[in-house]
């Protein structure tokens, strides 16, 4: 049962992380390797605020959203946009995000060292499970992670379908040049998407330490899993990451339990291979992902 709940929680967090990757890819055509570090920053916002202001981390979700949205927005404006304006390929932009990832890794670690050396916080390894509340017999993190993912996905979907901004975002994803001709400001729309993606990552990062151990490399180590969520979900539809998060979360936590009960506990440490396998299988056999596949079937 515990692993079922863990899987459910983990799924929602993965969904939140993949949401941002998908959003950025859809609107800007970039695979953002630095997205993992944005998640980590969310966790450190939670750590800092909780340590200095002594409130529950839930209290700081909006703060984490804002900080990470700002970081992601700055990454876009300062790192991506200048090079993209020169007509760089999506490949080159991927390299740019790797460079940005190196810089943010350094910044995060420097900050964590600083917290540890100056304020004597356990900043290299932290968990907030003791702050959590219980609702209907389950940890609050389960409810809040799903609430965050659900609210984000639904509101983003409504925004896409029913507002002019959403229309412009969809148009931009289809025919960027035509959208520009009709007056869509690509830079502003992309900036907005990056901010929103960063915000979602910030929520995931802020919630992550409620259930799972966090350290300066936590987001970095999960980037391949995030890619698996985003690519497996497909970038066609924004519900992709939600479903892919479920599949991967369960495959990784619940699935490995199942396999180990057949084969033996020896396989448990290899649960991190599961996202890689899903990613590679997806790229091979379902390159447009789950939502693309469903979309194609429906015609």
């Amino acid at each position, binding site marked *: 049962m515990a692993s079922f709940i863990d899987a459910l929680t983990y799924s929602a967090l993965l969904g939140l992380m993949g949401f941002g990757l998908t959003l950025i890819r859809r609107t800007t055509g970039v695979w953002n390797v630095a997205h993992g570090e944005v998640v980590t920053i969310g966790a450190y916002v939670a750590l800092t605020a909780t340590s200095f202001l002594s409130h529950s981390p839930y209290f700081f979700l909006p703060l984490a959203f804002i900080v990470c949205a700002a970081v992601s927005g700055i990454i876009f404006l300062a790192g991506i946009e200048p090079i993209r304006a020169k007509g760089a390929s999506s490949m080159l932009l991927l390299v740019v995000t790797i*460079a940005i990832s190196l810089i943010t890794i350094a910044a995060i670690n420097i900050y964590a060292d600083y917290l540890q050396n100056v304020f004597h916080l356990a900043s290299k390894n932290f968990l907030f499970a003791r702050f959590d509340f219980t609702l209907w017999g389950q940890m609050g993190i389960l409810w809040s992670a799903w609430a965050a993912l659900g609210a984000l996905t639904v509101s983003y979907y409504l925004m896409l379908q029913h507002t002019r901004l959403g229309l412009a975002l969809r148009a931009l994803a289809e025919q960027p040049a035509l959208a520009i001709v009709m007056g869509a400001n690509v830079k502003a729309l992309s900036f907005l998407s990056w901010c929103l993606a960063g915000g979602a990552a910030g929520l995931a990062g802020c919630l992550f330490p409620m259930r799972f151990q966090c350290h300066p490399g936590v987001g970095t180590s999960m980037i391949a899993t995030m890619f698996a969520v985003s690519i497996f979900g497909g970038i066609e539809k924004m519900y992709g990451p939600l479903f892919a998060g479920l599949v991967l979360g369960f495959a990784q936590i619940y699935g490995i339990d199942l396999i180990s009960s057949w084969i033996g506990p020896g396989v448990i*440490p290899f649960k991190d291979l599961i996202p890689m396998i899903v990613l590679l299988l997806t*790229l091979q056999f379902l390159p447009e992902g789950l939502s693309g596949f469903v979309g194609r079937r429906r015609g």
Partner: protein
Amino acid sequence: MGGQWLLFSVDLLALFGIYLALNLSLRLQLGYTGIANFGLVLAFTGGAYVGGWLPIRLGMWLVEVDPSLAEDMIWNNVIIASQVDLSLQGAPFTAMTILLLTLLAAGAAGALLGLLSGYPAVRLGGDYLAISLLAFGEVLAIIGNNYDPVVGGPLGVRIPDVWAWAGDWRFMAASLANCVLALGVWMYLNSVERSPLGRVLRAIRDNSDAAASLGKNVARIRLNVIVAGGIICGLAGAMYTLYTTGVAPSALSRFDWTFLPWVMVIFGGSGSNVGVLIGTFVFILVQKLIITYKFALSFLPFDPVWLQFLLMGLVLILVLNFRPSGLVTEKASYALGRREMAKAAGKEGL
């Protein structure tokens, strides 16, 4: 003081050789063929694991070691390695046999890993190929960290020193051997560049559709290049392990063995061997200096090693912004030399 400098230079040289080989492998894939291999660490780790697994077993087989130790190779690895070392001190031929067999196996492992990761990847477009290889790069780290029999899990293993026979010159010999490897790769790349194959590779890089329409099997050729690159990375990984006489999965990070080479190659210029050489040297030097003078920065409230990450990232961004082709740009290549061209033109009466 002098001794310290010598040590510094020798270690610099050793790392330089390893990284130059690795970076030239990336140059072959990215610069010649346009394959964005973000999984260099995979074949490198494969080679390193071979280096961690094979020499100690070869050593036990070739020299006198207490056979009861073999019952738990991992637990006893330090004892076995030091016993083998003692014998190897007077047996350069045995040591070199171990070296050659290890390199052979590491090259094969690199080729196999290149094939495994390349086969599904080569059909994918641009950045999907990069992500596929990036994901593959993680696989061996996960296995190595969790499956002790390979190289002892996260703690790693000690391995016999195949350079033990060189005595005081041990580090010098190992460093030079690394540079010989790099030189070999360099000459291989030069021969590729001059051959018709080099032009095919560039054609695939610049316009793979056009190359395909000329009857070139693009996916096949790209796979071959990834395999060749994998062999080079595998060799480099084994040489690195033999140089450090130890291997630990945690030291084989994506940062050190994929991203760092990328920074060096992009900085120097992926279109030029000389550029790659310069990029490699500059960054190895910077890295060594940061590590060596770390103590001078101990007043900082954080580990100075992060400055290296910061520097790499910034340099990469600046280069991509202001000089995307890198320090040294690619020379236009002609099918014929200038003189032959003039002669041909004369004959045709142009």
